[in-house]
């Protein structure tokens, strides 16, 4: 399937997403420039990790106004698949393509580590290659990944199954100690109501090779590739 990885000024993991898709997963993937409006026929658009525009005002706040984001919004409205990783998740929230917001980690420090995630809903285009409740070990690396939303919104997310990934411990329990950033309800990744836009703080593109960070990230990309077929 055809993937497009957007490159904003300050994107950092765009090359890693392209590497993971092309070299590790054998997909067709192209880089999309933020000043262009074309998505190049991509069937899934990836907004990568990084510090777009330095993340100087609020993470993602400036990138959402890039010309390409108009096309991404249109694409999403037409049902196209959009995956936002880390900074990409932050941009999707700022652009109101996903509910909630990502705020400074509870520790007030950047955190780079491997975490355990539990797949909360495996019936989506982004998670269908996983079993419900399956644990995935993925890296996180962010300073502002604490997911917050109003209580009634959280309840709705819960009811509709929009929470796709939660931070858990090795036994699969969503404990406070296993929550690396203080995210509300241990939320690591959420989808929109139509389940065609998904944002997550962990980096699946950094877990696609056994020699570098394991292969749990493949589940996300393989789900998407399968869903589009």
């Amino acid at each position, binding site marked *: 399937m055809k993937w497009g990885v957007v490159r904003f000024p300050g994107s950092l993991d765009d090359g890693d997403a392209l590497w993971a898709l092309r070299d590790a997963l054998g997909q067709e993937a192209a880089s999309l420039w933020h000043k262009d409006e074309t998505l190049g026929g991509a069937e899934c658009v990836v907004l990568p990790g990084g510090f777009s*525009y*330095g993340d*100087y*005002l609020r993470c993602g706040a*400036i990138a959402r*106004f890039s010309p390409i984001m108009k096309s991404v919004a249109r694409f999403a409205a037409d049902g196209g698949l959009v995956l936002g990783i880390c900074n990409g998740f932050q941009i999707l929230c700022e652009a109101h393509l996903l509910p909630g917001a990502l705020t400074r980690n509870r520790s007030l420090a950047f955190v780079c580590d491997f975490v355990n995630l539990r797949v909360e809903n495996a019936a989506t285009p982004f998670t269908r290659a996983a079993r419900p409740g399956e644990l995935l070990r993925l890296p996180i690396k962010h300073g502002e990944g604490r997911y917050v939303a109003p209580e009634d919104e959280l309840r709705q997310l819960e009811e509709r199954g929009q929470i796709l990934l939660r931070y858990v411990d090795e036994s699969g329990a969503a404990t406070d100690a296993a929550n690396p950033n203080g995210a509300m309800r241990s939320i690591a990744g959420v989808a929109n109501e139509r389940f065609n836009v998904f944002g997550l703080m962990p980096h699946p593109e950094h877990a696609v090779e056994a020699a570098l960070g394991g292969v749990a990230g493949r589940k996300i990309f393989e789900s998407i590739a399968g869903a589009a077929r």
Partner: protein
Amino acid sequence: MRAKVYVTPRKGILDPQGRAVEGALKSLGFGAVGNVRVGRFITLEIDAPSRAEAEIAVRQICERLLANPNIEDFTFEVAAE
């Protein structure tokens, strides 16, 4: 007393944040904007017998913690409530 503290990048010091915001505003069509500086706004309450004493304390608070004297300036207002 209630104090309002404004911490801003010192004049002449590079403010990457302000520059990024200014660039974004210009690209959104706000071409008339210039010299954007981004700082912090802090409010706090302080127990003090008089406004003058509160001001002394707030100044110390600013110098010791709220502002980085190497790169930031501060101003504050103290008002009785």
